[in-house]
């Protein structure tokens, strides 16, 4: 399904629509202005409909129980007028200029944004377009492969709230392998917003027209940092929160914990911690079973791969435990590692435990500078300030409590950037 020119079209009209899109976009951009107030009003109205339960069926298809509640609350909050206005204020504020300055500086839309959205977070493609609309851009969206109609539903509901928005949106359900269509969409854009790793970046660079701004939201890794006397039981609630976070996100998000770092040099202590943490992780995992046969298979096959790898490693270490000791739980695992590198865990409730004494924190994490995102900090209250500062100096962009690593906070920046700001340019006008 294609959505363009304020209506739906069948996929087989794609080439025809794409060939007329340049003229259409030029006409819209030359003659129309997307009023930010109207966009905010439409987002807010949509948020109220979500709050009233109109989309509960949709949400139920994504998640159940308490998770569904969380999804709904998050959608309602992100769409609310107060939230969007707060973002605009924070992200797009400009310094006051003296009235007699010879040049006036204003923020204007980049022009046309081409969004190549990721499918790892439900609602993300629609959110990306909403950001493009708030900043007044024309938005071309290529849906991710895993999209199941949710994005179209959100965007068409938004256009129904405010018909002007429909003029500024074109959504295509094109596979990335359709190179001609992708090139065509890219050729119309002033900025390409994309998610993904090196490969996505290479492919995007290859198709970007010269001068187009590449706005990348790449892959990141999160971790928990534990400092202080964890044996005492004082941190128990934090650890339970961490276990819940690991199980509920499946460790699939950039903000998810992949590694638990302990502020210690002792391997023995790391092993003790793994044994202490495993039952908590087991309890949390039992609250988050696989949602379908596919996910169940992915989880069990990944666990099987980890077991095979452990066997090979043990053999290489001459029968000793080797560099990694894997404690197997029901539907989860805790692996103690001898090294201290930040790395991706086997996912789905399989956490790595590593040693990282405070004095080594900065030099070790600096090696992963480009991919650091969230640190969930577990420490005594009086230590938090100092450790937070150290984590930020190492390059971490987000420090939260361990239970809140993947929570969304109002007004927060994104990987060290304000997204709305990236979708605009500063123009100079001589008075």
């Amino acid at each position, binding site marked *: 399904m294609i959505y363009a020119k304020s209506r739906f079209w069948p996929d087989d009209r794609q080439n025809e629509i794409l060939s007329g899109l340049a003229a259409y976009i030029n006409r819209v951009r030359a003659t129309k202005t997307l009023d930010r107030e109207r966009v905010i009003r439409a987002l807010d109205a949509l948020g109220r409909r979500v709050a009233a339960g109109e989309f509960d069926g949709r949400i139920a298809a994504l998640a159940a129980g308490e998770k569904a509640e969380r999804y709904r609350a998050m959608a309602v909050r992100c769409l609310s007028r107060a939230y969007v206005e707060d973002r605009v204020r924070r992200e797009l504020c400009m310094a006051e200029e003296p009235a007699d300055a010879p040049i006036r500086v204003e923020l204007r839309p980049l022009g046309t944004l081409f969004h190549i959205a990721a499918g790892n977070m439900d609602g993300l493609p629609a959110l990306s377009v909403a950001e493009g609309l708030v900043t007044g851009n024309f938005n071309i969206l290529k849906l991710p492969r895993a999209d199941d109609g949710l994005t179209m539903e959100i965007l068409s509901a938004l256009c129904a709230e405010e018909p002007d928005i429909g003029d500024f949106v074109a959504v295509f359900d094109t596979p990335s392998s359709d*190179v001609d269509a992708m090139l065509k969409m890219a050729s119309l854009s002033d900025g390409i917003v994309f998610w993904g790793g*090196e490969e996505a970046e290479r492919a995007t660079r290859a198709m970007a027209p010269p001068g187009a701004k590449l706005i990348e939201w790449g*892959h990141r890794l999160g971790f928990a940092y534990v400092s202080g006397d964890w044996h005492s039981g004082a941190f128990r609630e934090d650890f339970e929160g961490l276990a819940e976070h690991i199980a509920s996100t499946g460790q699939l998000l950039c903000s998810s914990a992949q590694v638990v770092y302990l502020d210690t040099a002792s391997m023995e202590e790391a092993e003790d911690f793994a044994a202490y943490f495993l039952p908590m992780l087991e309890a949390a995992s039992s609250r988050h079973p696989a949602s379908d046969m596919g996910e169940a298979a992915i989880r069990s096959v990944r666990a099987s791969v980890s077991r095979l790898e452990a066997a090979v490693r043990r053999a290489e270490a001459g029968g000793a435990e080797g560099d990694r000791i894997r404690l197997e739980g029901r539907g989860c695992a805790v692996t103690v590692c001898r090294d201290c590198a930040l790395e991706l865990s086997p996912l789905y409730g399989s956490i790595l435990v590593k040693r990282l004494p405070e004095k080594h924190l900065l030099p070790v994490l600096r090696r992963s500078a480009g*991919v650091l995102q969230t640190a969930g900090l577990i420490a005594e209250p009086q230590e938090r300030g100092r450790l937070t500062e150290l984590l930020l100096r190492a390059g971490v962009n987000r420090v939260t409590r361990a239970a809140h690593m993947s929570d969304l906070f109002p007004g927060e920046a994104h990987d060290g950037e304000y997204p709305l700001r990236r979708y605009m340019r500063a123009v100079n006008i001589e008075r």
Partner: protein
Amino acid sequence: MGAREKLFRWRDPYDTEGTEALFVAAMRENAAYAWARCPEYRAILDDQGFSPEDLQSPEDLARLPFLPTAFLKAHRLFSMPRSRMLIRAASSGTSGAGHSEIGLECGALAAGARMVVKAASARHILSPVPCHYVIFGYPPRGTDAAAAKTAFGYTFLAPALSRTYAIRKTEAGYRPELDGAIRALERHEKSPFPTRLMGFPAYVYFTLKRMEEQGIALRLPAGSSVMLGGGWKQHWRERVDKGEMYALIRRTLSIPEELVMESYGAAEHPILYCDCTAHRFHVPVYSRVIIRDPVTLEPLPMGKAGLVNLLTPMIFATPVLSVLTDDFGVLHPGGDCPCGKKSPWLEIIGRTGMGEIRTCAAGAEGLLSGLTAEGGIS
């Protein structure tokens, strides 16, 4: 003569019942070889307390440790020096999780050749009549994807007058050139020799759909055929019902359903599963199928859906005796198929999306090794 050779020389390629003992013997022979020469494989068997000698009856096959394709994509396992491998083939890697590399030694290739000839003659694919090939894939190069090599290999089943490829590999990725394929088909309509279309079903489907939109209906020479293989890959969402595909082929190319064949296989299990005239994938003697529970990975009885575990003693160079694929399938009992083949048949019902795990964290690791700075999400 070793058990493998006997198995691959077996007269009836679908006599799975008659080859039970021989299959187990060939697996035992192969497992012992891999255990002695591939340290990683030995570690895995030892870890699970399994000895190659434990393979004594067909029931023992399910206990032989299996290697998930995800493991083979992350680890290259070989039981022979590379110099003894005549061919190295890679899996397609379309899932984004890297690809596995499978080496084939001389004996495996000889066994494979016998298998292809047997399976092909069952469907009358082996022919002395020359033909034109239109391949919905790309030309093979170097250690290329097995699918490309297989498609190229199949163009020798009948002498080739011409080969037209519908996909080109470019800097920006795979680039379909469907219009070029349509023009080739139009040219071949006038030829006295038949045309064979082969390759990924998605591209065949897109091409024929385009022909239909343009009002093109060809009457390809008698004996022309279609061989579909390699699965729908990243186009699984557009996957169409088999009946719809056959009807489209008949409308646009005038090729009857009985001349449309589909094959199933994987780089990690290079056994040719050729569908029968009732379009079922019967298990050939060279292979066995175990369906496993997606949660416990324990074997399931016939008729139940689960993960497809494929077993073969074909290759000695790489220990791919028992491979757990990303496919979901059902194994149906044989005996009642209108085609007359007696062996059980495998129905593929979907993929786990193993390599499509919806994560943004997974991609970050690749960056860590390259130490490239990037943005992030969520």
